[in-house]
């Protein structure tokens, strides 16, 4: 980022600027059908009213456990899945229900990185063909031909440009993820949605890819939405973090605020559940242990989704859904009894 207002600390990004991506009340309900006539008997509310903004040059982390809707959210933003409700506005264009033909030009600016570097690359195509495909699909003319452009991309992600003619199986897992990233970068996107970009990789390789993503962001002025279940990776890579649970955002804040003074009980529990690779302070950490598993998104708890596992839950949590409100500057929480908050109860 070169603009003067963001030259300082990352957290001081001016909120008055136009967001690159604005998501409002986004929802995706997958119908559940039964019987011969495929009667709809219910819906999996994978994403159920999610709102957030992503500003240019920042990284928003989406964390949560399985079934929280983070992956679906990523697919809704990039319109791989058609939203049931709400809106997605990208660079001022409302793309919520835009037709595929009208959305195609916008796809250049909005790319996705997937988790599995083994299955997301076509094993019969060379690396050159894979990374060069976006040029062909979008019909883009490159200055010195596609081959040159692809080789530049390979070099950019730390691969040997000479390996242009090799096949995916000749590369290791980490290198394959680099190939995936190179393909993503081909069209110089503005926004990249990365769904579990490192979770299939070995520990030592994860760090390489995390560093690469950070370097590329600095070099190419990219904006990221990173979806991951690993809270440590998300803390490292994100500027702001949204914690999701059963299709809802529970808490959304700058990363330091979120990790050091979490306000939602679920965030507190989530953070205290992560094992720390250190022996100092072993046994002295405060532990919050949740009972049971995440409830099924087919039949989520009424009102506050977390009320069935929350130790603070009261009658009001089971009857009135807490709205996502800004309890502190740039710190939104959806809870009736937030943690780390002066005992001024709303309402």
């Amino acid at each position, binding site marked *: 980022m070169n603009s003067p207002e963001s030259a300082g600390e990352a957290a001081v990004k001016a909120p008055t600027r136009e967001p690159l991506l604005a998501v409002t009340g986004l929802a995706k309900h997958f119908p559940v059908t039964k019987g011969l006539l495929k009667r709809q008997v219910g819906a999996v509310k994978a994403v159920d009213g999610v709102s957030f903004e992503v500003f240019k040059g920042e990284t928003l982390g989406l964390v949560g456990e399985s079934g929280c809707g983070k992956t679906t959210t990523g697919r809704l933003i990039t319109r791989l899945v058609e939203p049931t409700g709400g809106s997605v506005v990208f660079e001022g264009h409302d793309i919520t229900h835009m037709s595929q033909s009208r959305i195609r030009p916008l796809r250049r600016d909005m790319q996705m990185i997937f988790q599995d570097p083994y299955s997301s690359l076509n094993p019969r195509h060379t690396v050159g063909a894979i990374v060069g495909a976006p040029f062909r699909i979008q019909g883009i003319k490159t200055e010195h031909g596609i081959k040159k452009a692809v080789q530049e991309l390979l070099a950019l992600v730390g691969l040997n440009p000479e390996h242009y003619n090799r096949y995916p199986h000749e590369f290791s897992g980490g290198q394959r993820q680099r190939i995936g990233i190179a393909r993503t970068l081909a069209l110089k996107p503005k926004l990249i949605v990365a769904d579990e970009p490192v979770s299939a990789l070995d*520990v*030592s390789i994860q760090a390489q890819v995390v560093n690469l993503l950070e370097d590329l962001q600095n070099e190419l002025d990219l904006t990221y939405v990173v979806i991951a279940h690993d809270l*440590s990776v998300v803390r490292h890579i994100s500027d702001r973090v949204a914690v999701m649970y059963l299709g809802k955002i529970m808490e959304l804040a700058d990363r330091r605020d979120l990790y050091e003074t979490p306000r939602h009980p679920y965030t507190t529990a*989530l953070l205290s559940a992560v*094992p*720390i*690779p250190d022996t100092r302070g072993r046994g002295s950490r405060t532990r919050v242990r949740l*009972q049971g*598993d995440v409830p099924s998104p087919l039949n989520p708890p009424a009102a506050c989704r977390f009320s069935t596992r929350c130790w603070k839950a009261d009658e009001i949590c089971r009857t009135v859904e807490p709205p996502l409100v800004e309890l502190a500057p740039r710190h939104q929480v959806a809870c009736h009894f937030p943690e780390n908050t002066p005992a001024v109860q709303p309402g």
Partner: protein
Amino acid sequence: MSAETTPSDAFLELRDLRIHFPTDDGLVKSVDGLSFRLERGKTLGIVGESGSGKSVTSLGILGLHNRKNARVSGEIWLDGAELVSSTQEYVRGLRGKRMAMIFQDPLSAMHPYYTVGNQIIEAYRVHHRVSKAVARKHAIEMLGRVGIPNPAQRVDDYPHQFSGGMRQRAMIAMALCCDPELLIADEPTTALDVTVQAQILDLMRDLQRDFNAALIIITHDLGVVAELSDDILVMYGGKCVEYGTAENIFETPEHPYTWGLLGSMPRLDRESTERLLPIKGSPPSLINIPPGCAFHPRCSYADRTGGKGSAEVPELSEVRGGHKVRCHLPANERHAIWESEIKPVLEAQ
């Protein structure tokens, strides 16, 4: 087995264990000279990346490798008995009874066509001559003990009717049903959500205390071993590269690979300003382990060994008080690197 072998006085001791697989592409040396000791009531964490040989080791201890396609040599002593030279029938009699295992993915590790109860009953009745009714009572008791609500009803459910966390609990119940003295957990929480992982780790810690079993926990996650282990063994390319207490490994690690693992992991509990310190390159293929020190192609300090890195396999030598490391770098140079280059960056991360 050679005649001069002396029986081990430890509860579990591996001596120079080698597990090699001949394949069409060459000899895969999955485990290549592994030794360690473990006492009852203690936990050993074995850490490594994919292909380090950590899972092959655990299957080797249980004697689960097919002797037709695996070459196993060395010694495995369990409570005074050597297992590598024992008959398969003898080792089978120990499996499930004195040594048991918990696997990574409880959905695929349980038979989809039999109820959870049936599978526990079966495990119990292999080693105990009791009626089905008695074994069933025991199964229900075990399910209750690992924290499954309504065990008397859930005992008749099939694995797919359990949630992920409950399935892993049931798997633990199955492993513990014969009161084993050695329990091996291979990536027991990798397939689970983080809040459920915390529950399972707590459960394993409590149960180990109750059963006073020796526990081996195999994982790629340094956080998990830090939570549970007394001792830690770091594996790379089929060999132990560093061994010590948990404090040794996390506070004064000696091996550049261990440094690399620590530097690769972002920390949940610190606000980082630095880039991560990854290890360059990728883990080696076990068919083609680099000569000399297997780690030397990825080691940032290999040029300081005077060419020994690629020429000689370093010995696993003791630094102090049981802390061992397999590295060519002189001890004082290692300490200097750790203090001046690695530690400050890790603390800042």
